[in-house]
Structure formats: C-alpha cells, structure tokens
C-alpha cells in the first residue's frame, strides 16, 4: 500500500525535474572521450575511455563506453547522416554509468537527479531510457533501487520497473506536505 503511494511520488519528483530540464534543453550535445571510432557515413559513433556526454546545464552522462547512432535522412537519397527531428536515434552507455539531470532550484541553487547503473540505453522510437545493472536513482527526496531495470518513459514521463525495487525516502520530504491530507475513504482528519 505504502509503495503505491511512494512510487508515484518519486516518479512525480523525477518528472518535475526532467520535464523542466527538457524545456530548457539546448540543441547542443558535447561528447568527449579518449578514443573513438566514427563511422561518418553510417552515422554510428563509438567512444570509450573517460566518456562524457553533456547537454550544458541540463544533463551529463559519464561512462566507460558509449555507442550512439545519429538519424539517417533516407529521404534525401544521400549517403551521409542528417538530423531528422533533431534527436538521436539510439544511445547505449555502459560501464560505470552515471547520469545527472540538473534543474535550477530556489535561490539560485541547482537540483540534481543522479542515476547509476552498469548500462543505460535510450531509443528514440520508444522514447524510453532503460537503466540496468544495479540501477539506482537518487533525488533530493530519496533513492530508488532496482534489482533488474528501471525504465523511464520520456513520452509519458513515468517511471516503471522490471524486477523488484526498493524506495528510500528522506523523512523530511513529507514535512508540511499535503499529500496525505487529501480526501480519502477514512473520516475527516481532526
């Protein structure tokens, strides 16, 4: 019962952060690494060793290995890749994956949501981000720990899981919250 309340709560907090981050996202991504192989014609990029992906002020990913595919413009009849719809086709980050989502907070502070796992996979068709390999998401409110996979749907902005999960919420998050003061089947609070 308590899970059915806490899970949406954490998902809601994550949604608020990522939703705001998306609204501010710039059309720029910075990738850096020690090594890379770029298949320029196919639009397939493989980077490894000290990989960092950054959308300035919005999000940052660090990992050991990254494979990214940029959309191909089939309609143009040209061999080279061109952006279609302004997004990546797919992205697979593996090895010590850390994803940080930034959101400007109150008084000039920055709220950060951190996701950890052995692999993170993003596909533009389904618009989902799948975190596997001891997946863990940390927010200012608490931590969500999955056993198999945590899946974030970017379209519906909802979080779901594969396998079991555990949520640890910080006690002070409920301080002053009206979440549990909403109307329920029980009698009115005194």
């Amino acid at each position, binding site marked *: 019962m308590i899970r059915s309340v806490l899970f949406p709560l954490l998902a809601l907090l994550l949604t608020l952060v990522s*939703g705001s981050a*998306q*609204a501010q*996202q710039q*059309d*720029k*991504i*910075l*990738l*850096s*690494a*020690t*090594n*890379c*192989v*770029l*298949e*320029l*014609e196919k639009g397939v*990029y493989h*980077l490894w060793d000290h990989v960092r*992906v950054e*959308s300035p002020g919005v*999000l940052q990913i660090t990992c050991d290995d990254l494979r990214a595919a*940029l959309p191909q413009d089939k309609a143009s*009849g*040209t*061999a*080279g*890749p*061109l*952006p279609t*719809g*302004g*997004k*990546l086709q797919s*992205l697979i980050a593996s090895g010590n994956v850390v994803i940080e989502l930034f959101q400007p907070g109150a008084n000039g502070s920055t709220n950060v949501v951190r996701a950890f796992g052995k692999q993170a996979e*993003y596909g*533009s068709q389904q*618009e989902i981000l799948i975190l596997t390999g001891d997946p863990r998401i940390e927010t200012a409110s608490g931590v969500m720990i999955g056993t198999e996979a945590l899946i974030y749907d*970017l*379209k519906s*902005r909802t979080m779901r899981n594969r396998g079991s999960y555990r949520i640890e919420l910080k006690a002070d998050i409920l301080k002053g919250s009206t979440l549990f003061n909403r109307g329920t089947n029980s009698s009115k609070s005194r």
Partner: protein
Amino acid sequence: MSSTNLRTGLTALLGLIACGALAQRDGSAGATNATSASAAATIRQWGISLRDTVTGRVQLRFSSTEASPAPSDKGGLVPALWDVTGLKLESFRPDESSDFIIESPSCRVNVTTKDAGSIGSFTARREADGISILGHGFQFDGVERRLTVTNSVQIELRTRLFQPKPASP
C-alpha cells in the same frame, strides 16, 4: 601493381596536374639529405582529387599548403605517401555536395589507400548537421569514411538528446 592501384595512381597524378601543383625544391631539406635529392622536393599548394572510378564523381579532395613525398620503409620514395602541412581533406557525398572537412596542421596522407593520419591535433566539421570534432591522434579511412581518434576527442553535435514533449494546450 594491380589495375585498381594503377588507376588510383593515375587519378591522383591527374588530380595533381589539375590542381596546378607547383613543385619546388626545398633547399634546406636538400642540404640535410643530399643522398636523396628527390626526397627534398616540396610541393606548395598541393592538391589531389580522388574520384569514383565508376561515376567519375569526386569522393575526396586533399589539399595542403605544403607536401613532400614520404620515404618508404626501404628508404626509397613511394609516391602514394605524402607528408603534408596544413592539410584540408574534404569528403563529398555521392551528389558531390560537401560532407566532412578534416583539417590538420601536419599529417601523412596515402592517396592510394585514401588514408590520412597524424599523432597531432586535428579538427573536423560537417556543415549539413553542424557536427564539429576536435582531437589529437587521428586516422581517417577514406574508403570506409571512418575516423578513428586515439588520444582525446571532443565532439559537438547540434541535436537534442531527447525530443521535448510538445506543450500541452
């Protein structure tokens, strides 16, 4: 030499002529290597266009401020290998529109295998999608259009990581 290599060599030679390459003897290099006078030859405003053998369309264009034939492993000269300064390598799409442009202050070019590489710095960019690359230590395979970087790379993509959700009414 295979017919393909011969054809590529001839294409490269024609490209050199077409680009109006001007060969000049480099006095300082000649003085330091008197036994191989031809190795001292430096070509200024060097350029080679490599074309598709079937369609005749330009695939790659190498140009540089200076180029010298690189000595082979046996100490002789292999015309396919060039040590170039101020390289500009342009790759073209099948419709001959510009694709990637790679620039390097100093690198070695093999016009037979269509390779270029250097342990030094380089930049690459593509106007069509705004991608730009900066790095150290690269090898470009002109046949596969594959760029390998071995000592730090920074790539800037003009795209979004995720598609923003349309604003609700």
